[in-house]
């Protein structure tokens, strides 16, 4: 049986009917990881024994009559989310041997639900990147073409779901890091509204836009995972206390009369094959009774610039805690024949020798834009532009219910093609940073293929309207089979 092709609901039914045990399912995925991941390189850690133990416990709970939807379902988690007693590296040499002392809230919730953690996935170091090439350990490959990147920074999580190494995975999205890899790998990636899912235990990057979200094979699965991980958490001071919707309940609402905004300049900026494919999506929505409304988003072109001021600024502050004293990389001075006089020199060496190129680039850029004399011109200005972008979206939502854009300006690029051009890498997120800055719920879903590689469309709506986004995406998925295609990897 190809369990890797089944959805959460299908597997849940098999588990509940006693036709499959969680242990069998866990062994199935562990075997797939063993077989496929040597070439795909999506996982940093695989917790075989711990996963088997969790699976056995899940089987006991099932036999006692528990019916949680994710009970016994194996998943993978991006390695910047803390897992108690287990390695959490953020794909950095700084945290190569770091053992998390506590669980992130999302992990705690999935544990309580009975989901089975198989391991941790690769990312750009500290989630700084759009290709997973910035991992300090190795480059993850795109399962549709191993010569290409999976996108990033949640590249390991997206590649693993696409290759069927787990049922679902968790990623984190700060300016596109769930949606862009989801589009490159032909899977579903949901960035929830800012503050909807607890950030407690997520290694902070840009605290004002960081969000954890699910990467899945279809929209239904996104809704099921969201039902478990969303909601107020007193350990996250930005956590929202609004009641959580049942995201599964409204997936099939009729879309007649629904208004979907489209900024045609975005689509027309793509090469013709991509724009034609995206336009086909618009036809599908029209066949569902959706009215396509042309909109204008002139401020979006500044989203990237604002993002690359705000993000490095927050990174320079958030990564200041990493000094190698209480935990993390400690420079081996003796074997290098070096000596230091004081604590400051230790900081310089521990940080200088363990952070990768992009991490240092962002820390320097952020320290610079926050430094005396530049603060007003950069950070303050960027915060104002962020507000302007947010207002622009608010205005658009006075006339439309949701917006559709491409997820990425192109298909997955080749490993090594952009790695030496940081600015080009920053422009990867051109369509996805706007909703991040505004804190909106946004999903990337598969929308077809160009040159046999997947492309995605992004759908977003007002803050906390995850229901609207998921409903729209699910109805689209009922009319298409792009999300059911699988890469030929074995």
């Amino acid at each position, binding site marked *: 049986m190809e369990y890797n092709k089944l959805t959460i609901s299908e597997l849940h039914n098999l588990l509940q009917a006693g036709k499959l045990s969680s242990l069998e399912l866990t062994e199935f995925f562990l075997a797939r990881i063993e077989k496929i991941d040597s070439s795909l390189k999506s996982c940093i850690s695989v917790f075989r024994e711990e996963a088997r133990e969790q699976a056995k416990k899940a089987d006991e709970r099932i036999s006692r009559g528990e019916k949680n939807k994710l009970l016994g379902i194996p998943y993978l988690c991006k390695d910047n989310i803390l897992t108690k007693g287990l390695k959490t590296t953020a794909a950095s040499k700084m945290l190569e041997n770091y*053992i998390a002392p506590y669980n992130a809230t999302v992990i705690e919730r999935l544990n309580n639900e009975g989901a089975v953690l198989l391991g941790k996935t690769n990312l750009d170091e500290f989630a700084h990147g759009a290709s997973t090439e910035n991992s300090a350990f190795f480059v993850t490959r795109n399962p549709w073409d191993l010569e290409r990147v999976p996108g990033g920074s949640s590249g390991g999580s997206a590649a693993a779901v696409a290759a069927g190494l787990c049922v679902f995975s968790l990623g984190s999205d700060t300016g596109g890091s769930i949606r862009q890899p989801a589009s490159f790998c032909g899977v579903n990636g949901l960035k929830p509204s800012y503050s909807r899912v607890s950030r407690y235990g997520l290694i902070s990057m840009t605290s004002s836009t960081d969000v954890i979200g699910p990467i899945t094979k279809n929209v239904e699965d996104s809704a099921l995972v969201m039902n478990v991980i969303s909601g107020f958490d007193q350990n996250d001071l930005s956590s929202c206390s609004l009641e959580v919707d049942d995201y599964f309940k409204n997936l099939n609402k009729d879309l007649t009369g629904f208004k979907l905004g489209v900024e045609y300049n975005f689509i027309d900026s793509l090469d013709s094959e991509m724009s034609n494919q995206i336009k086909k999506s618009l036809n599908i929505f029209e066949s569902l009774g959706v009215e396509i409304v042309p909109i204008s988003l002139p401020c979006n072109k500044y989203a990237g*610039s604002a993002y690359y001021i705000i993000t490095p600024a927050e990174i320079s502050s958030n990564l200041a805690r990493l000094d190698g004293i209480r935990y993390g990389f400690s420079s081996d001075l003796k074997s290098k024949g070096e000596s230091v006089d*004081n*604590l400051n020199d230790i900081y310089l060496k521990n940080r200088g020798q363990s952070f990768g190129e992009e991490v240092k680039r962002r820390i320097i850029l952020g320290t*610079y*834009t926050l430094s005396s004399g530049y603060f007003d*011109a950069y950070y303050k*200005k960027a915060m*104002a532009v962020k507000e302007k972008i947010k207002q622009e979206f608010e205005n658009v939502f006075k006339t439309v219910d949701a917006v559709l854009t491409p997820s990425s300006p192109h298909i997955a690029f080749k490993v090594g093609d952009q790695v030496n051009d940081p600015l080009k890498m920053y422009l990867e997120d051109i369509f996805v940073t706007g909703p991040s800055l505004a*804190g909106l719920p946004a999903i990337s879903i598969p929308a077809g293929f160009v040159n046999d590689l997947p492309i995605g469309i992004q759908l977003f709506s007002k803050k906390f309207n995850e229901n609207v986004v998921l409903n729209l995406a699910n109805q689209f998925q009922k009319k298409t089979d792009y999300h059911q295609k699988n890469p030929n990897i074995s």
Partner: protein
Amino acid sequence: MEMNKSQIEKIAQLARLELSEEEKIKYQEQFKSILGFIDSLQEVDVSDLDVLGLSGDFSNQLRNDVVLDCLEDEKELAMNQAKEVENKQIKVKRVL
């Protein structure tokens, strides 16, 4: 806007980062294009916006300032990460 080498050195010190000569040269070059990119914001008029406050749809979740003990095994896991521990204290080099 550009960053010269001595600015990069000063910022790296402030950020507690040891950089190699190679890195300094590389970053200086790359910052030209990155700063050029972010400088495009200067053309946006934001005179009507009051910023730096939190957005209207966001509020901090505050709780009472009460010390809560954490689990023993979590304490142990946290302390075990340090390179040198003595009497449940982390040892560091002298500060000055």
